[in-house]
């Protein structure tokens, strides 16, 4: 009856609004209500899920082997030498010894770790020219590289910018003492440490018949000891802008304390299964000064798993929040039961 009325009304009255569900705001809707009874199950489900994931993560993180060697103190004399910029061309070597108690099986990654190095400083982050690193011939004067764009005489720096300028340039070699006297160099890979996309898309050397000519007319950044085309003279695929060390460094870290992948273990010979237990020495050519900013430098040898490195936090976070959620679930259940009792009481005794 009412429907019919509406229809006829609409025919005769053009101004009568439509009675569509949308216009009348009567779309079918789900109206969840947040009360104890409705959310109880979801609390337990989510809580248990988190607990489970958390435990898995903790287990996997604990399977990671990692060793950190701080060489800031070991190489005190070198760092003192580097404090004065006038000694930039003096070479300084030092050694850091350490012992592996157990074998480190699997892929081993070698990182350098810097503390208090604010790579995420705003102006530092900006100070680069992606176009230049892509091998394009750009006028870096207009880029964000300033003041590390050109020398006063107008020679452009290659690569320009503060990031490139401050590149980590310690050279580290790892020696394994097969016995107490003979040490053999552990084979480390310089390649494949950077993102594939960086290496192949984002970074490219300027095209020319050879690399040194490509960099003609440019100069190395002031803090560098050698120009970009000499970064890795042995490997054409790792020289110039596509040098892995440079690429890794250019991917600025999120925090002031960070590690960057430096080398990977080449699993050959006796290192096929990883690093055997024993004594090792890092042979460090100390170039990178950190004392200025109270920084520390470490070297890290680590394995990785599917869930990252040795960081337990993710697992703990899951476990703790899973526990909290389950606990909250119990509290809610208790409240719910109590209230239901009360409710039935009220229902039985109205008023």
């Amino acid at each position, binding site marked *: 009856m009412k429907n019919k009325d*509406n229809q006829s009304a609409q025919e005769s009255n*053009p*101004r*009568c*609004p*439509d009675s569509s569900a949308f*216009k*009348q*705001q009567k779309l*079918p809707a*789900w*109206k969840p209500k*947040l009360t104890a009874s409705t959310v109880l199950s979801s609390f337990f489900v989510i809580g248990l899920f*988190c607990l489970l994931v958390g435990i898995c*993560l903790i287990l996997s993180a604990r399977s990671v082997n990692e060793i950190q060697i701080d060489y800031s103190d070991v190489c005190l004399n070198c760092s003192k030498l580097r404090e004065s910029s006038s000694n930039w061309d003096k070479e300084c070597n030092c050694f850091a010894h350490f012992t592996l108690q157990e074998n480190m099986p699997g892929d081993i990654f070698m*990182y350098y770790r810097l503390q208090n*190095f*604010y*790579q*995420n*400083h*705003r*102006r*530092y*982050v900006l100070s680069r020219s*992606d*176009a230049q690193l*892509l091998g394009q011939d750009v006028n870096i004067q207009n*880029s*964000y590289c*300033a*003041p*590390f764009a050109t020398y006063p005489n107008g020679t452009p720096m290659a690569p320009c910018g503060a990031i490139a*300028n*401050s590149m980590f340039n310690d050279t580290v070699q790892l020696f394994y003492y097969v016995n107490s006297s003979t040490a053999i160099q552990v084979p480390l890979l310089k390649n494949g440490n950077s993102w594939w*996309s960086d290496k192949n*898309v*984002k970074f490219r050397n300027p095209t020319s018949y050879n690399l040194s000519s490509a960099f003609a007319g440019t100069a190395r950044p002031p803090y560098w000891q050698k120009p970009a085309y000499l970064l890795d003279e042995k490997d054409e695929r790792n020289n110039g802008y596509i040098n892995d060390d440079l690429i*890794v460094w250019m*991917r600025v*870290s*999120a*925090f002031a304390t*960070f*590690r960057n*992948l430096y080398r990977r273990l080449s699993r050959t010979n006796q290192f096929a299964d990883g690093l055997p237990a024993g004594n090792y020495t890092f042979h460090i050519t100390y170039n990178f000064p950190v004392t*200025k*900013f109270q920084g520390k430098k470490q070297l890290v040898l680590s394995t990785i798993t599917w*869930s990252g*490195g040795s*960081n337990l*936090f*993710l697992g703990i*976070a*899951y476990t703790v*929040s899973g526990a909290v*959620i389950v606990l*909250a679930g119990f509290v*809610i259940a208790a*409240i719910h039961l109590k209230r239901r009792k009360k409710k039935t009481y009220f229902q039985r005794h109205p008023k």
Partner: protein
Amino acid sequence: RRTGEMAQDTAADGDVPQLQKEEEKEWKKRRRRRKKESKTRTVRSNLLLPGPEAEKPKRSPLANNRLKTTKYTALSFLPKNLFEQFHRLANVYFVFIALLNFVPAVNAFQPELALAPVLFILAVTAIKDLWEDYSRYSSDNEINHMECLVYCRNEKKYMTRYWKEVEVGDFVQLRCNETIPADILLLSSSDPDGLCHIETANLDGETNLKQRQVIRRFLELDSEFDPLKFTSVIECEKPNNDLSRFRGYIIHKSGKRDGLDKENLLLRGCTVRNTEEVTGIVIYAGHETKALLNNSGPRYKRSKLERQMNIDVLWCVLILIVMCLFSAIGHGLWVWQYSEKKPVFNVPGMDGNYLSPVLAAVYLFLTMIIVFQVLIPISLYVSIEIVKVCQVYFIHQDKDLYDEETDSQLQCRALNITEDLGQMQYIFSDKTGTLTENKMVFRRCTVSGIEYSHDANAKRLAMYQEPDSEEEEIAAKGGTLSQRNSVSSHQSIKVVHRSLSTKSHRRTGSRAEAKRASILSKHTAFSSPMEKDITPDPNLLEKVNACARSIEIMRSHEQPLSQLTPELSDIFDFFIALTICNTVVVTSPDQPRQKVRVRFELKSPVKTIEDFIRRFTPSRLTSGSNSSSSSSLTTSKSMNRLGSGIFSSISTESTLLKLEEKLAHTAQMNNNGFSLQSGRRAIGSRPEEEELRYEAESPDEAALVYAARAYNCALVGRLSDQVSVELPHLGRLTFELLHTLGFDSIRKRMSVVVRHPLTDEINVYTKGADSVIMDLLLPCSSDDPRGKHQKKIQSKTQNYLNLYAVDGLRTLCIAKRVLSKEEYASWLKSHLEAESSIENREELLFQSALRMETNLHLLGATGIEDRLQDGVPEAIANLRKAGLQIWVLTGDKQETAINIAYACKLLDHDEEILTLNAGSLETSAALLDQCLRYIESKFSNNAIDKTAGNMTVGFGPLSPPSSSVNSSLGLVIDGKTLAYALDKTLEDKFLSLAKRCRSVLCCRSTPLQKSMVVKLVRDKLKAMTLAIGDGANDVSMIQVADVGVGISGPEGMQAVMASDFAVPRFRHLEKLLLVHGHWCYSRLANMVLYFFYKNAMFVALLFWYQFYCGFSGSSMIDQWYLIFFNLLFSSLPQLVTGVLDKNVPAEVLIGVPQLYKSGQNMEEYQPHMFWMNMIDALYQSLVCFFIPYFIYYDSEVDIFSWGTPITTIALFTIILHLAIETKTWTLLHWSSCVFSILLFFIVALIYNVSCPICYPPSNPYWTMEKLMGDPVFYLTCIISPVVALLPRFLYRTLQGTIFPTKLQLGRQLNRWPLDARSQILNRLNIKKESIPQKLPCTEHSSQDPQSNASDSFKACKQTPTSEPSQHGYNPAFPSCTRVEHKTGLSVTVSPAGPLLCGENKHSSVTNSQEQYLEFDKITHNASEMESMSVEETFPWNSTIDQSGFSLLNWITSTPLFSRFGRLLQLPPSQLQNEVQGNVSVLGSTSSLYQDFKGLTGKNSNDF
């Protein structure tokens, strides 16, 4: 020919006295002066050749008729629009930030990118403006190209021109049903009387026709008006927007001038009706027309929510500054700590120099402002606007707010205050037309002291109560002629209403007018079958017939009519008065363009003294009564000139004396009149009774005319000089209409002066408010029996009038006066003087009218019912349950208002009513003090009660602050007292009293008072006020209120034009406020809060990062995400929720109006909620920042690979947060959330592969792709939102379980089983239930010394729940009476008389006794009613005196009059002194009061 006449005029004026020339000079001087001030406008004909004389000395260019409402041109759009947009502070802020980005030292983002959001928002607004402007342009264009006839000099005829080509000074010819293109001075009309009927519905919505008059001098032209010969100059005022005023002069070539007023002006936008053809000269054109000057466009109000929001925006600014300062200082310290060491990562400036820590800090401060800019929600304003537009759309679309009868729907005229509807606290309502239908229906009448109750009529009206029965009834009864007509008129009503509703666009007279001109081809009066088909009372009908029969007999026997019994003659005159004492115009439905003309002679109302002489000289009789119209025209013309000649030489007095002598001889005129009439009857009455349609200025008039028609006294024709009435047995009588003294609100009456065709006497019929008419009656001596009888009739009539008022009827008194010729002549003389005077014409005319309307003979009175609109009582009850305090402000008299208030449940019968009637400021003050003290004493008891009530109920925290409203009180205040109460010194008292009353009723209030009351409440109580009304008198109130609601009713569109919302019916207010208002408020409140949360949460993420990047202002979130996060990724779900979320279903909101209180108390958006949200945002941002931080701590993660998961987490958290807050999930909600998330990923993926170097300085290449292959990313994205939202989710759950809000309960209402539902309802209504418990019951009857009164007294006092023991001895308790109110029963005073309830009470001063007079039990006893007379009331007085109680008026000059209850109290100190002198004046009815007047003497206050 015209010039010839002019010359003649000049000749006649040849000997114009020097005085006049002086005056002329004086006037010219004044004119010159005025010209200097440029207060006038001079208009000349455009057809005149520009001669040296006619040359206008550089007059300022007058606007032509081109309509241009567009704001922009193609060129000016960009600068002008931008300029306007930058008036908004937010825009300036955002542009400032964007520009800051271009400064290299501080820039944070790619400068071009930073402009994007600002440009986007500016562009959106600009496009909106452009679109609006374009639609304005096209509608302007349409109107500009409408056509009209303009006189063309070259062609010497009227040519079709576009409206836009019309200019001031052009001559325009208009045909019937054409729309008037400009403001035109009427110069000629095809109507023989020089009238033009126009319909002003476009302008003010009034559908009745209005008459406009050709300038008199042009009317007298014999030939066709020729524009070429128009040489006069028109001086008039500058264009202004006053529709009801127009002043000017027309100066003829001869130097003579005629005054012009609004009667001569045709206003643009009106439509010509009933007139074949009119011609006029354009005075104002285009934008200077009154219609366009009246269009003020839409109003921009700022809603309360927005005001509150702006405060929080300011808080955000403060937070932003604090954050930036903190960062800046941090950065300064950070730089300082490295001082001279210059680490490599601290990049020096462009010039290679390192910044000093201070400078670095300053730069960083600016950078941080850019980085944190999203904290000031850039899109908030835009989002709010979008949401509001959508809300308005949905309100428009609501079927429940559509009125089928009038085919109109709700209109939102103000787009930006929808949420205010959800926060209203006070409703100020007009009564007539708002609560009632403004359909006046004749209900009953009393004639000559005898009441005709029209029971059948009452039953008929009751049947209309069923809204749907109307049509069916007609269908059932159809067949009779009248029924058929009623159907047609009913339909035509619909037509009108449709046109009404179409018009209510912003600009009347411009946009809609063109379209509506075609629709509105028909016109109607206020008539529906309900109003037209009055069932006559058989008794009265019988008497009318008898009366007519006897007159017929007498006439045939040539007996004088005076032989008729007084009663019958009164009845006869009564109906004559009903029929002719009005300004109703008769049209016939078949040919709407033609007036029904029954024209015998061409005469105008008596306008000049010579006219009077002409009409009353015997020569007219000798010249033959059957003189043809044409001859009479010429004679009148010639006589006119002759007369003026005579009058210039002979003194008027002597002429009049002569005339009187002549008139004395015209006794035989009666005979003549008779024969004349009978002769005409044969001609005049047509065989078929053609249905006539009445067009009245006010619905009351139409109702009376229809009522008379029901008694076969039908008005059949009205011309300016005569009224024709069809009478039973007598046929058609034609009354010569000598004068019409129109209605005005000061006199409150109108009169017509006619010559009675049967007696040839000059009769004055007056109709008006009873209060004024009763005072104007001929004082009758009580000695002579006739006078005594008359007096009795008067008192009886007064009693009936009171009775009508009790029934809520509108009362009108009808009176008559017979004038002798001499009286008339002398009055006429002064009247003509008044009419011709220029200086204070209005004042003199008013005085003249006063002189005429004295010594009246009372005929009877009518009661007209103004029916309540459908659903008003329910709506009021519901609104009140919703915690809204409803005040009714009406111009009606107190009794009527009170009764309507009862009828619509505004007042309750168990409610105590305080009535404030005071005559002076002092008494008002005293009265207010007294009432306040009384309430306070009552209230203190309540307080005890309330706490007790709360304890038992356990609902303490939820009781709203409005609980202080004492729901048992109603306040009635009349206009005079209101004026005092609104005085600066008293307004606080008045307010504190009023806000404790449940309802307030202000009677007899003027429009200004209405707006003052609203303003007072709005400003002093800081309350949200809503004013609703339908008429022009409500406009000021509507404009003052926070939200003005207009009712698109028959009284015109003025209220609608001024309003923010227009509803068809009062009852629609219920859904508008309770449902839409609530929704809009809660949606917007939630959205605004969410916005703040969202932005704060997002910005806090960046802030935390500053601790890890040396406060250097870097952000881990890519600039693209940062800038588009608000604009793209997170905007849609909140918009959908803001538009569509329903926190409680509509049915529940209507069913449980108490839920509305959440809006009033701002429960959804309170200041602390902002901070709660901020704290939640803080927590969530901490979680969303530090979980990824610790997860990626000490890893090789780079800045964007770490920032992207954070962005993702933030997006998830923000959307899930919204999901928790969303109460209703429709498909749109789901899809918007999913869409947002998908959009983010798609954009991120595309953005991260598209180009490795395109977006310097950020280089996000392949980041997202890489992340999506990393399980840690997913694990992070799961755990962070879970942890972040856990507290809120837990809180919502626990709150929903343990202490659910009313809204939450309401939401669940629908799904619960029945018993549980009732339980919830109980909980929701608990507040309401507790109120009656709190009511103090003033049951002192047991202590009442007068035991005989106690029974009835008790009956008055009983309230459902009572705690007599506690309240028995309450101090200063007047008694509350409950009056049983039954319609249809007579009211009388019970034999028990006034109940005197003395009571022991303790007084703060002494223990003396104070007396309370409990007064006025009104019982219903029809039989006693008859016997009740004035005399019977006097014994009361003796009772009072003998009773030994000192019955004292509180202040003698304050009558403290109340129909229902009365409280009289005297402070003990005054007791002894004033006992003797004071007699309390107590009346249940005003008649009693009046009778007591003698006793109280001058002390009493006339009300």
